């Protein structure tokens, strides 16, 4: 779960990392306890909002009113702005970059820092980004922090303050099950304060149950997406007209690749994952019907998912409610023979290879 900037900063504040004085604003009454000039920042869960006009500097109340009305409600790459953060400006002496993320190869948290923070961090060459890996069995130690801070070429007092921020940020990363904590820029002010001007915090979705204080932001979903989410089914909406039901992310991706090979286009994708529950299969099939694809392609390989369970769910929906588009099925694996009998019984085409089925689906969808 990606947190909005202001939520990330609330966490920074909780861990003693300084952030600019600021608050969410809705109207001019909210400006009263802020010092001009300040900055209005659109709260959206993606980058590039500055370039899209979602960050504006304001000098007085009238200016702020006008620019707030421009930002509130604007569209930034598909996200409507519903929240705006106002923050007082700080005098910047230096801009640093600091992040902690997961290094999948080393399977450890990776701390990265650079003395060249700011908008163009991705084009900063590797030798100017300093890295330290932390083995989770020992946790963060002083040598890790010294290893980074010593390379940033800071004045002594600045270095001490940045070291504290790294230590606090690591604590936050571990305690809140973060996939990413990123501060860009982390600034040193003319007064020598170290302040996080931005925040990017992503919490591991599998661990959100441990953090009841993190309330998800309202994200606008299509009614079908909402429906799928409520039923715990992975749902992807693409441009095409072939509805695909498969199990497992790898097979779902390979199915899409196969359709593309035969010039077919995947539309709604449902990944059943490892479900064994006939009720969930029924719900998935109903959901697929609602998406009104031209063809439904059921591609199943049974392991922990038993093919017959899925087949039973499909048959029930079809015999009870009927279906108004062709259904191509391809079933292999655990209890495949029973499943094929059930599907044949429901009048569906079975037994094809992946290529056959992908080709047939693509042809029928044209």
């Amino acid at each position: 779960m990606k947190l909005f900037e202001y939520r990330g900063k609330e966490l920074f504040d909780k861990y003693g990392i300084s952030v600019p004085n600021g608050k969410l604003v809705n109207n001019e009454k909210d400006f009263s306890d802020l010092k001009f000039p300040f900055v209005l920042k659109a709260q959206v869960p993606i980058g590039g909002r500055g370039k899209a006009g979602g960050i504006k500097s304001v000098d007085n109340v009238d200016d702020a009113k006008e620019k707030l009305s421009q930002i509130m409600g604007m569209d930034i790459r598909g996200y409507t702005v519903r929240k705006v953060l106002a923050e007082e400006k700080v005098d910047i002496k230096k801009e640093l970059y600091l992040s902690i993320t997961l290094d999948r190869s080393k399977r450890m948290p990776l701390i990265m820092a650079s003395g060249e923070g700011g908008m163009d961090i991705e084009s900063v060459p590797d030798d100017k980004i300093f890295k330290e890996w932390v083995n989770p069995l020992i946790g963060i130690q002083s040598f890790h922090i010294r290893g980074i801070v010593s390379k940033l070429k800071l004045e002594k007092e600045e270095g001490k303050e940045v070291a504290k921020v790294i230590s606090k940020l690591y604590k936050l990363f571990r305690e809140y099950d973060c996939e990413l904590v990123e501060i860009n820029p982390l600034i040193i002010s003319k007064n020598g304060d170290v302040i996080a001007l931005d925040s990017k915090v992503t919490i591991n979705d599998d661990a959100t149950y441990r953090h009841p204080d993190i309330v998800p932001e309202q994200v606008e979903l299509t009614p079908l997406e909402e429906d799928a989410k409520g039923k715990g089914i992975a749902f992807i909406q693409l441009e095409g007209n072939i509805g695909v039901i498969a199990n497992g992310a790898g097979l779902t991706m390979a199915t899409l690749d196969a359709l593309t090979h035969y010039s077919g286009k995947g539309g709604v994708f449902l990944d059943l994952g490892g479900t064994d529950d006939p009720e969930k299969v029924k719900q998935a099939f109903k959901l697929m019907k609602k998406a009104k694809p031209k063809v439904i392609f059921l591609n199943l390989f049974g392991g922990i998912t038993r093919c017959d369970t899925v087949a039973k769910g499909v048959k029930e929906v079809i015999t009870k409610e009927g279906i108004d588009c062709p259904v191509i099925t391809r079933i292999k694996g655990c209890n495949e023979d029973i499943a094929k009998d059930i599907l044949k019984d429901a009048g569906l085409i079975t037994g094809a290879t992946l290529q056959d089925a992908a080709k047939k689906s693509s042809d029928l969808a044209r």
Partner: protein
Amino acid sequence: MAIFADKKNKVLVQGATGHQGVFHIGAMKEFGTNVVAGVTPGKGGQKVEGVPIFNNVYEGVSETGANTSLVLVPARFAKDAVFEALDAGIKTLVVITENIPFHDAMEFVHYSKYKDAVLIGPNCPGIASPGKTKIGILPGQIFKEGNIGVASRSGTLTYEIVNSLTEKDIGQSTCVGLGGDPIIGTTFIDALDAFEKDPETKAIVLVGEIGGTAEEEAAEHITEHISKPVFAFIAGRTAPPGKRMGHAGAIIARGKGTAESKIKAFEKADVKVAKFPTDIADLVEKYS
């Protein structure tokens, strides 16, 4: 021989009395796996498919000599279960559970290394060495004894590919599902090294997918250390771009992670890359 799993594995199942536990204990026994114990706290003394159930791993190990654990417990209890198994002396762990918080996985993966154990998964289908043993939830009927080693990041795709090999009468030495999570205990590189050393394995099949840099790293490793022929499939050539992990993700990846990058890396390492999962069998057949 085989890699990571053979007749010597005496398997204990953690989470044995649940729906999946009961089903897969039966399926593993049918495959020939030596399942010696099950563990479910509070259910000690029961039997599942003739297998004695214990209240904890330590009891199971001391009573039966189990040296391997199959972990089927729910995600919230997985870290505890893995630590318990490692402390009870288990040396091979197969963690099937999905949706384990990755901070938990990170901790138990490093602890397994400290304990000098092999940990496969999490979020994986397990491992099968046809004719010897199966530790996991892979469908038993797709396998055939032979000389091809298979290592995969995907579950169902592995079955797909193994099945197409078997249909062409090409058997397998060991098939290992490494798991689809960002943090896994056994990587492509670990599997490649083990297959290279295994006299029974004549050629290796890798099944990868987009995201991360595991395939690119495997490709580099193959050039330097692997003499046996390697074949590969990459899923996700046409998948929509996934989520981006801030600037940090881009700095680590530096353009790696896409299907094109992985296919290019493999081709550079003389690895033949199949277009369809089922084409792997044709490539292997032509070679042998």
